[in-house]
């Protein structure tokens, strides 16, 4: 079966596996993390046709024919995406395990709502958890990113 990931087509083995497993184990795209495995933490966030979903809760077979974006697909020509840069500038992480998920959720948020209020940001990102508690800096990074995107 063929998956479209980050703009290219990848042939992967058929079978009942989560998208998260296929991305990490078959395609080596380890930017997508596994945290809870039950849809609650957001470490495995990927965009499917532009919408954030949990890679741990969807089967690879369900996304055949759709466009999948992982954190690896954000940089262009060696240039970090403005959201990635904003997370670095605001030091919006400690261990950074949650960061790819937060960055992709932010990308989807800004796409839907280019000028979100602080409350809207908090609400939208409430399903992404950061065990290191970098929330204040993450909020700053999103505010900084929306000025640049």
């Amino acid at each position: 079966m063929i998956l479209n990931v980050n703009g290219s087509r990848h042939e992967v083995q058929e079978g009942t596996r989560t998208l998260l497993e296929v991305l990490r184990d078959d395609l080596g795209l380890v930017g997508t993390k596994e945290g809870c495995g039950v849809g609650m933490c957001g470490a495995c966030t990927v965009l499917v046709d532009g919408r954030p979903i949990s890679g741990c809760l969807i089967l690879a077979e369900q996304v055949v024919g759709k466009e999948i974006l992982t954190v690896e697909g954000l940089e262009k020509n060696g240039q970090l995406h403005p959201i990635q840069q904003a997370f670095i500038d605001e030091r919006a992480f400690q261990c950074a395990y949650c960061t790819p998920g937060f960055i992709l959720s932010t990308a989807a948020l800004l796409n839907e709502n280019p000028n979100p209020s602080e409350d809207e940001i908090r609400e939208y990102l409430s399903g992404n958890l950061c065990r290191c508690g970098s929330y204040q800096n993450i909020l700053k990074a999103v505010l900084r990113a929306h000025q640049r995107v």
Partner: protein
Amino acid sequence: MNPIKFLEPTDFSEASSLLDQYTDDAKIIAGGVSITLMLQQKLISPSVLISLGRVSNYDFIRHDQDGLHIGALTKLRDIERSDIVKKFCPALAHTFSVVGNVRVRNQATIGGNLSAADYAADPPSMLAALNARVQVQGPEKKREISLGKFFLGFYTTALESNEILTEVVIPNLSSSARAAYHKYTSISAEGRPCVAVGAVADFDADGKCLDLRIAVGAAVETPQRLNSAEAMARGQILTDELVAAIAEEYSLRLDPLTDVRGSAWYRKEMIRVFVKRALQEVRNDR
């Protein structure tokens, strides 16, 4: 996970015939949120998954003379954001906006949410208070089931093993009717409900209550309405005393369950609080 056959019918009657053919070996997969979780946790081991992902034309929201129609494959996030739904009943849009997190709502479908019949869910209580019904397709015939008769118990619905939920219909509300949905979460803000209260009330020009419908869910096996309590409001002004008495009736008569989100005792207390708040909202909104 063992390899499981993944079938992708393109319409509901084909899907239902496949269900009929494979019977207990097959599971429908719509958004796949619950199904993937159950597969991962080895709670189910079907040999066939019948995906609704290639069925077209059932991802819709439409307002007709007889009410609001939502196709079974419509994503919760699209219902939450729909201007048609917001105009029809803001409390309904709100109900969908508080389900889990944005990723769950992007993937989960209304048909999957109802068919899963998980007691710890939000849409069932609001939809029950709105007198919603579901349309169902079997291999030979279609039928309609009112939501009050759809949920039979924990994870159990009135769907036959070869039937598929195709559409949810919510009858029109009178222009003087008001609705409210109150979700109480006891663990985290984006968690499943500990208590869910959907309330709909209609009033005459003098502010007397013509009709009241309250469904309490998440604290009990299936969303529960109480005729005795609803009747207390009919023809009456919803004073603070009456609101408290109706809330007390729900708290007294329902038999809540105990789980990680709260004990039966605690839920009785919270049912009283949240029925009261929902009633105050529909009353004050008038």
